[in-house]
């Protein structure tokens, strides 16, 4: 456990160096929500922007490791390949989770301060859940590409592969609707939105587990 803690600290220390940028961006972001909070949906938009802006930053930790060839050094310490991959996934998940959590709290507080209350809080939170899952999908399809080709060499693949997965999934969805047209008319969107948090939890677990297993397999075969 201490090893994982150390590896998470390593990535946090990299972030520590951007603290000036992060604080500045956070202040700008709070101002944006404050002035935008008179409009509908600013709560949802604010939280999602916070998630995308800060949550997806964790990919840069791969870049810092790659530049210093840190993985090679870490593997010469009492650290296993499993520890390294697991800690990266934990870091990415925690970073996204904390980002959306902070985004929700900040957006909620400001919206309540300006407008007195947040309308449709339940639906807004459900949309945040869906956004979080979408970001998880992007990150989880991106990380195995980074392990396979590296941050620099794998830039193209990191864009193409998630896009290809989205395309394939939407084609699959279209195919299902073509084959079973009744399904479309019987779809209860309100019910779907209601149960979406449960679907999101299952999808998040699936994305992270599958992606972790692929990345671990790639990293296991990697020579340094």
């Amino acid at each position, binding site marked *: 456990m*201490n*090893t994982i*803690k*150390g590896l998470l*600290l*390593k990535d946090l*220390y*990299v972030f520590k*160096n951007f603290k000036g940028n992060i604080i500045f961006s956070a202040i700008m972001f709070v101002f944006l929500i404050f002035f935008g909070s008179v409009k509908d949906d600013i709560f949802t938009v604010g939280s999602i922007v916070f998630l995308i802006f800060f949550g997806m930053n964790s990919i840069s930790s791969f870049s*810092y*490791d790659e*530049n*210093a*060839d*840190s993985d*090679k*050094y870490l*593997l*010469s*310490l*009492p*650290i*296993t390949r499993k520890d390294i991959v697991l800690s990266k996934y934990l870091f990415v998940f925690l970073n996204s989770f904390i980002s959306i959590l902070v985004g929700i709290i900040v957006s909620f507080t400001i919206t309540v301060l300006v407008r007195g209350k947040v309308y449709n809080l339940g639906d807004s939170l459900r949309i945040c859940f869906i956004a979080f899952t979408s970001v998880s999908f992007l990150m989880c399809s991106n990380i195995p590409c980074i392990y396979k080709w590296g941050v620099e060499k794998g830039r193209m693949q990191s864009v193409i592969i998630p896009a290809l997965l989205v395309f394939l999934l939407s084609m699959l969805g279209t195919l299902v609707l073509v084959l079973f047209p009744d399904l479309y008319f019987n779809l209860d969107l309100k019910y779907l939105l209601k149960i979406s948090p449960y679907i999101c939890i299952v999808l998040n677990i699936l994305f992270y587990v599958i992606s972790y297993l692929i990345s671990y397999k790639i990293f296991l075969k990697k*020579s*340094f």
Partner: protein
Amino acid sequence: MVIIVEYNLEVTNLTKKYKDFQLKEINIKLPKGKIIGLIGENGSGKTTTIKSILNLMTYDKGSIKIFGKDSRNLTKEDREQIGVLLDDSFFSPILNVNDINNLMKNFYHNWNEKLYYDTIKKFKIPCNKQIKEFSSGMKMKIKVLCAIAHEPKLLILDEPTNSLDPIFRYEIIELFSDFVNNGENSILMTTHITSDLEHLADEVIFIDEGNIILDVPKEKIDNDYGIVEFFDNNPDKIKKDDYIKCLKYKNGCYILVNPKNEFQKKYPKLEVRRPTLEELMLMLVKGE
């Protein structure tokens, strides 16, 4: 009386094939309390050997044992007994000395924080500056410190004296000598700066194009090998069977002899001196 030699590291017939390079049957036996220097040209196979020992890459044939166990099956506790310095890889340079201490104490149970900070103070390394602001010598000091501050039993060092000034190189050599003094610890180190091994190594292994072409105790180099210099570029007066290699240069040539005592008896008027490791390496690779 039978003396049982215990080894901290045993590499047997290590073989690794690449498209254009092959590491061929490398054998290294590093006893407790000893230092082995691995020398050779760039691309000769030193780093491949080190990487194989550290499990950073797979190998095709052979076996590697550390503390008597297969290196691929070492536990975390076993690996805590190894200190490593790699020339080309470390933590991100935006970390500082305190950050590194905080990380290392999570990775090693026996991380000696006092030893770390005492040595930091001794080396006059600033604690709050990022590593990227350090000189290359200072970066190397931090790497050396990270390899020894958990008090390991085996040190595996890839070019540890690279980019160090002569004074610090001397200090490091002293430090390594002290490290093996307890008779339990050992060091395997690669280096380009062969002069560092002159007073440090107990054994020298010379790798060339993936082959070990020389594996001798340092004492044997001192006692048996000799070098003779001719200023007329003509060692013809010496029988070819009496020397191993001859290296010609612009105004003369060198010959390498072994054993030097016999050569000296045969040619008493010639001055035979002990070769430096660099000369030995040069003669073995470039000599005819």
